[in-house]
């Protein structure tokens, strides 16, 4: 199932040129899942905006990157 899925996902992305790049599979996979991952970020930021509407102050919010 995995094999078929990946063939469908990758169709048209890779052209078999003769130069060996061991990272090409890793790069292609990122390009494939990019849309999905980007969508996740967008949805999450929208969701936190919605949440903020209902919550005056998110005092307990823990931001792991709260460094600045």
């Amino acid at each position, binding site marked *: 199932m*995995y*094999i078929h*899925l*990946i*063939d469908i996902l*990758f169709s*048209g*992305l*890779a*052209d*078999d*040129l*003769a*130069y*060996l*790049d*061991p*990272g*090409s*599979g*890793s*790069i*292609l*996979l*990122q*390009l*494939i*899942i*990019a*849309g*999905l*991952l*980007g*969508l*996740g*970020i*967008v949805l999450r930021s929208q969701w936190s905006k919605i949440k903020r509407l209902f919550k005056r102050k998110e005092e307990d919010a823990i931001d*792991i*990157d709260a*460094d*600045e």
Partner: protein
Amino acid sequence: MPMSKRQKVEGSFRDPSGFIFIDKGVLYRQVNRIYADDYQRLMESGLYSTLIKAGLIIPHQEAERLPVEPGIAYKVIKPDPVPFISYPYEWTFGALKDAALCTLSIQRRALKKGMSLKDANAYNIQFYMGMPTLIDTLSFETYREGEPWVAYRQFCQHFLAPLSLMAFCDVRLNQLMRVYIDGIPLDLASKLLPLRSRWNFGIATHIHLHAIAQKRYSGSSVSNTRGSRSMDKNAFLGLIDSLEATVRKLNWTPSGTEWGDYYDKTNYTETAFAQKQRLVSNWLEKIRPSIVWDLGANMGVFSQLAAEAGAYTISFDIDPAAVEHHYRKLKSEKQKGIQPLILDLTNPSPAIGWHQRERQSLFERGPADLVMALAILHHLAISNNVPLPNLAELLADVGNWLILEFVPKNDSQVERLLRNRVDIFDTYTREMFELCFKEKFSIVESSQLDQSERWLYLMKKK
């Protein structure tokens, strides 16, 4: 080890951005001209100060020192020294997980400042002041929107593969890192992971699907297709988020440790145990070592004494569960002076990598000022059949001072070890032990523990 005046350190040769060298015992890093722009961006964008504030990168000063290769040099920097270099196959699950999260946290901060990690190598992370810290200052490059993460494969091989194998299969599989210097190949990880790991979105994507993609498209060129499809910044952040969520969800609970309740089970009365602690403390105060190796440290009761005496203490044990418990305890107490590591003393970490010089063997990272070998000798001599002269030789190689506990044959712990085997250890006596150790050490002090057959020794290497 005799050292020429200025010596390039093996193991930092892959990256053309610069390299490490040692000059009169002090460690420096040459930054090459090819890396000048990225170095300046790191320092001027605020990224370096952000990372320093968060304790995520090793602090450095720009040094006046002359470069080793002036023709290609831009600058020489002097990073703060890390007291002991350790490797991922010596780390406990929790330590590897924290190192992975540290890497992702750095990457997230880098992206905010327009930079990105160009490698995600577990060896670039070291434990400094009790925290995982990036030691390779030259790991950053300018982020170009649309480009995927070049270090994605490396992150998966160095962190995600071992962590998922440890969490899903067996914690001892971190030892695969010792075999594969660039991380565990994803097809191997995928093959070893159980079926149920495919229901975990992160593992399914970053390991299983990733392994298939690597295999099927290893000979493909992606350069022609990048123009048509790229990875915007949201997608990039999404990738980091997904990796972080996957790592966070991986857990390992150390159950009944080999020596879990060791301190309760052993043959000491409370007074003898207190006496042992007092003796060790006194001797540590007397020697004032700066580096201590505690061999067979279990959960670190005696390592703690060494740390209290001001020594940076490496706390080794063979049992991953004991080391994990110790790591968690130190982390929750925010202790900085002890590093717990997994070590099988009968087969210690070898030198690995190119020319066997990329990663040092355990003994190359010594000697310690003082070695503690408390209640471990009988395990090595009897369970592992190591003759006493060989034990003396090894202990003399790893440290200048030695605090050792001798457990005689009539001790019930030793009786237990001998219960199911023929006693071939006629020479395992205290007299013989002293004779063998006197070949390599002078016995400075010795004392019998109250209401016990055990003896404690302070020895100095000859």
